[in-house]
């Protein structure tokens, strides 16, 4: 075994959730993978859940495919290993991760990041997904990607011993990745790149269908009910703008206003990716190159970013009266986006 190995990563184009940051860390500079990425991530959906850690009401926003993207992306090879398998095959988690990285496998799963971050013993857990892409035996560290260490997505190191502690204390109940998707249990994902051959071409029919469903706020999840049918109160497409406004309005008028900007961050990432998609479609002949359209869509990106930043500012200063401007930015983004995407859909349907 080598003393040190780092699998390739690129700082991700979008970072809103750990599963997206992981997939884009592995794939976002790959030209084949872009064909799948730009065929997907068009539909937005949101629903209310209870936050895992606090129990607070939370609007969970995501692009489709959501957290299942690591399993479903054809440019990745996905394996699931239970804790029992890991122990049986390798004896301990450190050897397992090192051997997996030696075989070019990235590791993803839930660890207690309170154990990883705090030197002192703490009586609470912070179970969170961690993305592991390398190791250094001399320094006894793993190279990881996560949001927890610097309050934004970043690549850091975690010592072998902290990571082992963070792994061992997670129970089946704490492992929300396995609980949600794999009928309980405890384990990790191994993800490998599968980008050598173009196994998935840009699917322009899927792009058109996704754009139609996004613009008409149609229920895209109905296509996938054979896989999952847990949620029936989901809002789709353009209507998520109204849902997010209503959620923020509720938070603004609470006795102690407390803002959750995650939904807005997902919407901002959605606009960033849509801008890149439009550019890609123009550069690859699916749309006529039109700088004016790109510039106009860029104002959607800017207005979403400004809305998000203004909400951060309000949360710091408590200037609730500024929320009038927040609605203005969101409304401007929505109106402009509808106009541009209908125009793009019409051009794609004419071709």
């Amino acid at each position, binding site marked *: 075994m080598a003393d040190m190995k780092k699998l390739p990563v690129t700082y991700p184009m979008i970072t809103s959730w750990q599963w997206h940051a992981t997939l884009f860390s592995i794939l976002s500079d790959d030209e084949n993978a872009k064909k799948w990425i730009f065929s997907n991530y068009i539909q937005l959906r949101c629903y209310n859940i209870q936050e895992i850690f606090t129990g607070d009401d939370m609007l969970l926003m995501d692009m489709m495919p959501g957290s299942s993207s690591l399993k479903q992306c054809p440019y990745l090879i996905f394996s699931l290993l239970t804790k029992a398998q890991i122990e049986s095959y390798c004896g301990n988690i450190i050897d397992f991760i090192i051997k997996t990285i030696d075989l070019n496998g990235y590791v993803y799963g839930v660890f207690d990041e309170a154990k990883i971050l705090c030197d002192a013993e703490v009586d609470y857990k912070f179970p969170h997904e961690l993305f592991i892409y390398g190791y250094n035996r001399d320094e006894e560290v793993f190279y990881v990607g996560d949001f927890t260490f610097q309050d934004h997505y970043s690549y850091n190191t975690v010592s072998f011993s902290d990571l082992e502690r963070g792994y061992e204390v997670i129970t089946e109940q704490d492992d929300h990745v396995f609980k949600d998707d794999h009928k309980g249990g405890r384990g990790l994902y191994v993800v490998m790149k599968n980008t050598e051959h173009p196994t998935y071409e840009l699917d322009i029919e899927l792009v058109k269908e996704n754009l139609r469903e996004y613009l008409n706020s149609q229920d895209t999840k109905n296509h996938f009910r054979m896989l999952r049918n847990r949620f029936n109160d989901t809002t789709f497409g353009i209507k998520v703008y109204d849902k997010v406004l209503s959620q923020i309005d509720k938070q603004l008028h609470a006795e102690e206003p407390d803002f959750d900007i995650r939904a807005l961050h997902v919407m901002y990432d959605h606009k960033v990716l849509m801008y890149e998609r439009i550019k890609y479609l123009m550069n690859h002949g699916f749309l006529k190159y039109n700088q004016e359209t790109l510039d106009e869509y860029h104002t959607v990106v*800017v207005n979403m970013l400004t809305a*998000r*930043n203004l909400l951060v*500012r309000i949360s710091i*200063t408590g200037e609730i009266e500024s929320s009038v401007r927040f609605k203005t930015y969101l409304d401007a983004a929505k109106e402009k986006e509808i106009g541009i995407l209908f125009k793009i859909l019409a051009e794609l349907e004419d071709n």
Partner: protein
Amino acid sequence: MEKEQIVKKLEEVIHDVMPEIGDINMSASITNEYGVNSVSLIRLIVAAESKFDVSFTDYELALSGYDTFGDLAATVAEKLA
């Protein structure tokens, strides 16, 4: 206000908001060198507004507008001019 005074006062703001930062190089990358992110930048801007009695527009809250603390000082200087 002289440029040097602006830099000195801005350094005080940075140390108040991000006490973990030691010596400040006004030309170094604020993201790579000092770990400033979109939220901490807005904290810095809000504190700078109060310190210098200036106002930043909503569009000026974007992290992409500032590569260095020197860029932030330059924006403050423009507002004070």
